[in-house]
């Protein structure tokens, strides 16, 4: 006997494009439910990796015009070396990616050491870039005691645009090698009208010992 399959219009609910079907607020009827607009694309888990890369079209990564805005989040990124800078760069290649896009950026930080010293909010000229193709440091001076790491986020706007430069905005917190909390804010742009096709995260020396980096797409429809 053939199986009976139910179709979209078999249920007692009005179909709404791109919505899920679920129960209403009284749990006594069906309704349409909006899915999230912040969609998890990919999670990479570090295990003594020299770099972690998100390459459009590779390993289920989407980093193109599918989403207007992308958001990276990293949780408990722990370095193999002490006092190193968690960093990133972009690529505009379509294969054999080189991470060397020209960037200009600005960086300031708030900090306080565990001994209640060093309290400051200040511009950090060591962390900004002026038309540099080198990596952009994010969290600087990350400690590698067992309990030290950095967590944060990076917004990347319209990476696939071939009209505009591509802006990024970052914020994080660092367990500093000097035993303190450093909170960083970096903003800048990839100074190119070529599409950014990949993003790579590294430490200034040594490996990314542990931690997760997640990539999300922010929908605009």
């Amino acid at each position, binding site marked *: 006997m053939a199986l009976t399959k139910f179709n979209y219009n078999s249920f007692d609910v009005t179909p709404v494009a791109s919505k899920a079907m679920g129960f209403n607020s009284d749990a006594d009827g069906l309704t349409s439910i909006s899915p999230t607009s912040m969609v998890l694309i990919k999670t990479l888990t570090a295990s003594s990796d020299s770099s972690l890369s998100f390459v459009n079209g590779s390993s289920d990564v989407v980093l193109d015009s599918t989403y207007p805005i992308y958001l990276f989040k990293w949780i408990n990124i722990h370095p193999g070396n002490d006092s190193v800078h968690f960093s990133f760069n972009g690529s505009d290649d379509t294969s054999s990616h080189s991470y060397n896009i020209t960037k200009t950026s600005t960086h300031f930080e708030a900090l306080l050491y565990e001994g209640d010293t060093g309290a400051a909010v200040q511009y950090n000229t060591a962390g900004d*870039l002026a038309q540099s193709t080198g990596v952009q440091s994010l969290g600087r001076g990350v400690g590698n005691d067992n309990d030290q790491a950095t967590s944060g986020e990076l917004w990347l706007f319209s990476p696939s645009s071939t009209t505009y430069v591509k802006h990024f905005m970052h914020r994080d917190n660092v367990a500093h090698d000097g035993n303190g909390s450093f909170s960083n*804010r970096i903003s800048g742009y990839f100074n190119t009208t070529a599409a950014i096709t990949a993003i790579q995260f590294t430490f200034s020396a040594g490996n990314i010992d542990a931690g997760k980096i997640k990539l999300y797409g922010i929908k605009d429809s």
Partner: protein
Amino acid sequence: MALSKLKYNSLNVTAAASKAVGFDAGADDLSASLSGGSMVFIKKVTASSSGTISFLNGASDVVLDSTYKEYLFTFKNIHPSTETSFTFQADTGTNTNYNQTIQSTYFRATHREDAGEADLYYNQSNDQANGTAFQTLVESPQIGANNDENLNGYLHIFNPSSSVFTKHFIARISTQNDDGQPGYVMQVFTAGYFNTATALTRFQFKMGSGNIDAGDICLYKIS
């Protein structure tokens, strides 16, 4: 013959309020444990030489009421017709004066492409002390109008429909400009509150002068 539609209790799953129906972790049964999104798109407005861009509760599918306690605007590739500032205001009810009283702070960091002007600076010219002007999100003339120049960022609005509290907002913008000197990036932090206990029902964005030539402003609800 009337069409027979399957009711909520036709599914082999225990109904759970406001949950979506999906498959369980083993993909061998139905589950009603899936939540809808906590950040849900409401509306996108694309600028096209626009004098203003407005989001009005109840108009054009816009929701800006007590349904959600937080709303988020995102700005993507906002491009001006001329070098200028980027601003916003709000209003109540059906009013369209956009002149609510605002208390705010404004600071920014800058850096030029030749490594000059590395600076963190509070800008008193763009904060407001119970002012009713449009609130600057990027000061003039820091949004460049060259073909590749644009601003991006976001604006959080908290509990706009409250009839008890002032309404807080937090914005962060990244912009750049090549003003005849080496170009520069500016990251701007604006926060404050609408000093009113009346519900805000509408928000408007505009340039300090000229039009919003291009770009998208999206509105999301955060649950």
